[in-house]
Every structure is written in structure tokens, then in C-alpha cells.
């Protein structure tokens, strides 16, 4: 696999979940780390079982309850970080960080009934706050290039495109300085703020 690129600068500080807010439809949403309970697990299965296939990205979430459970078992493991957006006892969205050799891959899913209400932004910030607190350094993701809403959300958060040569864009974010203590603190002149 090719080497992925990450921004030099460390991202802003994100607040650590649990957090709560009112979404644009007036619903109270609570964002908190996944608690490994039967109720939580079954609520996730239920959300993904009802997930609109048109919102699938690169084959996930898979279709059918059996495959959903297999997939969840893989991404809810002890080495992964998961954050849930709750609306009462129903799950509105889920975001996850899954480790590979040197970094964590990010994905986020918001159920179709809860989309366009600002939940995705809170959810991804919650996940990154959790990851920051856990000392994770680098996060990457892929996104289909026609998914403009997602791409602009990731950019707003601080992700930078690291590979634009494939069907999917690859983006990276630095959550914490490198472990060797040689971070980029005090660096000047290479900020690239562009708010257009």
C-alpha cells in the first residue's frame, strides 16, 4: 500500500464526549462513546438494518443482518474507538476509528432520518475528541469524490486531501504530535487558511 500523507500541523482541540446538543429539527442528541452493552449493540444493528442502501460508501455498511453483525464485530473491537449519537434510545448516527499499521481509518454514518440536521458535525468532532484524548496521532479516510457534503465536512474539520488520483479521495488529519516530541509547534509561515 502507498504511504499516506498527513498535514504538518496538528488539528484544533476537539471536545471530548459525552456532549449533548439540539439538532436543527429540535431533537435532543447526545454523543457518547460506545458502551459495550447488548442494548447498544442491538440498537446499532437496528440502525444499520434500516440504513438506506443509497447511502452506502464503498461497500459499507453491508446489507443484511448477518453481514451487519459480522462487520460490527470487526469494528467494535477493543482496539477501535466508537462514538454514538443517541436520540432517546434510538441511534441517529455512529462514527468509528479502526487501526491499521500506523494510523486509524475513520468512517461516519448518519441514519437518513437524521441527516442534514447538523448531527454529522457533532458526531465527527466527538469521535476526534475521543481519539485525541486517547493519544491517537494520525487519522485517514476515503470518500467518494461526488459526495460533496462529506468532503466539505471533512475539510471544515481540518482534513487535507492526501491522494486525489483515484475514484475516491484520500484525506488525512493529525490529531496529536508525533511521539518523538518533534512536533510542529512554533512553525510559522506554512499555514494555508483558505475560507472560500
Amino acid at each position, binding site marked *: 500500500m*502507498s504511504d499516506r500523507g498527513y498535514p504538518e500541523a496538528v488539528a484544533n482541540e476537539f471536545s471530548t464526549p459525552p456532549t449533548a446538543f439540539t439538532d436543527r429539527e429540535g431533537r435532543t442528541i447526545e454523543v457518547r462513546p460506545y458502551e459495550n452493552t447488548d442494548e447498544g449493540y442491538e440498537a446499532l444493528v437496528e440502525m444499520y438494518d434500516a440504513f438506506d442502501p443509497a447511502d452506502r460508501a*464503498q*461497500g459499507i455498511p453491508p446489507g443484511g443482518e448477518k453481514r451487519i453483525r459480522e462487520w460490527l464485530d470487526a469494528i467494535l473491537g477493543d482496539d477501535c474507538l466508537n462514538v454514538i449519537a443517541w436520540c432517546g434510545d434510538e441511534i441517529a448516527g455512529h462514527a*468509528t476509528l479502526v*487501526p491499521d499499521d500506523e494510523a486509524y*481509518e475513520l468512517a461516519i454514518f448518519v441514519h437518513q432520518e437524521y441527516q442534514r440536521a447538523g448531527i454529522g458535525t457533532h458526531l465527527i468532532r466527538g469521535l476526534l475528541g475521543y481519539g485525541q484524548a486517547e493519544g491517537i496521532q494520525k487519522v485517514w479516510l*476515503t470518500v467518494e469524490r461526488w459526495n460533496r457534503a462529506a468532503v466539505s465536512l471533512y475539510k471544515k474539520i481540518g482534513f487535507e486531501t492526501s491522494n486525489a*488520483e483515484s475514484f*475516491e479521495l484520500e484525506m488525512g488529519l493529525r490529531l496529536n504530535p508525533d511521539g518523538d516530541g518533534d512536533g510542529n509547534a512554533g512553525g510559522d509561515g506554512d499555514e494555508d487558511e483558505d475560507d472560500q
Partner: protein
Amino acid sequence: MKVLCGIGGSDDSFRALDRTVERAAVANDDLTVAVVDNEDSSVAPDDVMERAQEAVDDAGIDADVRRVGGDPGSRLVEIAETEGFEEIVLGGGHTSPMGKITIGSIAEFVLLNAKTSVTLVR
């Protein structure tokens, strides 16, 4: 059918090889296996050649296994056009830790540029 199977040594390319050889034995396809340079592959081309020849021998079919240098995507498309192949078969992509499928750069090029049908093996 005259089939060109392109492999470079990635896991999904070996899956494509096995399925194509299996199918050729049943359907009596006229199969050519092209071993291309995949810079993302950790398996050396000579080992890929050997693996392909083994698969062909095991299936007891008479397929051509050849080494194809140069840019893999464009060479496969060119061979398919100049030699009258009807289908190109390739690996169907690699799966990230998250479970996301990513199609390799060779498959992307072939999908967009081939005049023949293209099969990606999952």
C-alpha cells in the same frame, strides 16, 4: 470466449486468477494470463509467473502465461485490442481495515479505457 486475465501479485489478483482458470476449464475459454508490474504488490513478478503457471497446470487447461512489462493498465488495454480479446478479468479491489472496498489503479484505468467488457472478481 477469448479472455485476458491481468494479475500483478496482489491478493485480489490471485483470487481473480483462480476464478478465471476455474471458469476457463468449464467453459473452454481461450485464456491468456498476463503478469504485469504492480508497484503496490509485494510479490515479485517471477513468483507471480510461477503461481499462474501452477494454477493453469493444476486445472489441466492450455492457457498462455506471459510476462507483460511497462505500464500495466495501458498494456492490458492494448493487448486486448490488438489481439482480439473479448473480456479482461482483474482483481476486484482491496478491503481497508474498516471494510471499505478500494479499486486498484490498474483496474480504474482499464475500466475507463477498455473497449471490451471488464470483469472485476470479488
